[in-house]
């Protein structure tokens, strides 16, 4: 019964091909894995400032993305379909920093962020299933106990 409900909810908003998104997900997971962001010890060494691999990875990703977004904005055809890209920055709200601190603590404890936890599963780091369940519970609990923020207030 419950399963049927889940499947129906999933089907109800299917009007666009999902495969490009899966493909981008595969690419993202592939590069995350190659960057060693999925390795607990590398994360620890990043936070102990012993190794600068991941700072470089994040910095390079930001450099490439911001440069590309800049070119997209300047171009006459901002996206492939011509539809403008929604590039509104996140609204400034100091209390968000509390959440950011909690996130950082979780990142250090679990040695992974949301994207890499799922990538770890595919790499064969089976223990990551507990991180994934924890993240789901955290996302669910935020909506349940801290209502009032809509998904429009999110970058992702």
């Amino acid at each position, binding site marked *: 019964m419950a399963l049927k409900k889940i499947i129906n909810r999933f089907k109800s908003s299917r009007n*666009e091909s999902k495969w*490009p998104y899966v493909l981008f997900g595969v690419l993202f997971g592939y590069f995350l894995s190659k960057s060693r962001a999925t390795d607990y010890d590398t994360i620890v060494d990043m936070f102990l400032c012993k190794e600068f691999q991941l700072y470089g*990875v994040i910095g390079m990703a930001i450099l490439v993305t911001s440069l590309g977004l800049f070119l997209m904005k300047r171009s006459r055809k901002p996206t492939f379909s011509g539809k403008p890209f929604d590039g509104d920055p996140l609204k400034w709200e100091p209390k968000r920093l509390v959440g950011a601190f*909690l*996130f*950082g603590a979780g990142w250090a404890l679990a040695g992974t962020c949301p994207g890499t936890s799922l990538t770890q599963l595919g790499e064969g780091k089976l223990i990551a299933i507990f991180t994934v369940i924890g993240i789901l519970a955290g*996302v669910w609990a935020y909506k349940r106990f801290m209502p009032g923020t809509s998904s429009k*207030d999110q970058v992702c």
Partner: protein
Amino acid sequence: MLISNTWSWWAAGFGIGLTALGLAWFKGRRLGVTGGFEDACSLLPEKSSSFTPSPSHWKLWFILGLPLGGFLANLSHPSWSWLYGRLDALVFGNFILKALWLLVGGFLIGFGARWAGGCTSGNSIMGISLGSKMSILATLAFLAAGIIVTNILFKVF
């Protein structure tokens, strides 16, 4: 090279940047992972779900690709194990303690990411690239908390 080793920071970072750009250019979407977890929550068979899924659940489909990417990146040396680096020593090799540890860590990640408005991919990569002051400060807070917690774990104990 393509399937065996890990990459240098600039090559891997370049790939991640291109992925974010591809998603923006081809699909007009912003890179982010936590939204996919929220999509998954919207599928829970609750009586009245307060979750609004993304259009076509695209965020969920996106994160479903991640495990496959991780699998492909390790094709040449696949290893399936429950070990988890230096954390094993920290929890005295106790499986249940390790599972609880990761559940708590995961909970903080999920709860904090929603509160902060995005995770490492949403805030630190996409948000900063969009020039958002909020995302820059959120990222600094991520790092500050991570540095404090890790130093307590590995320097004090």
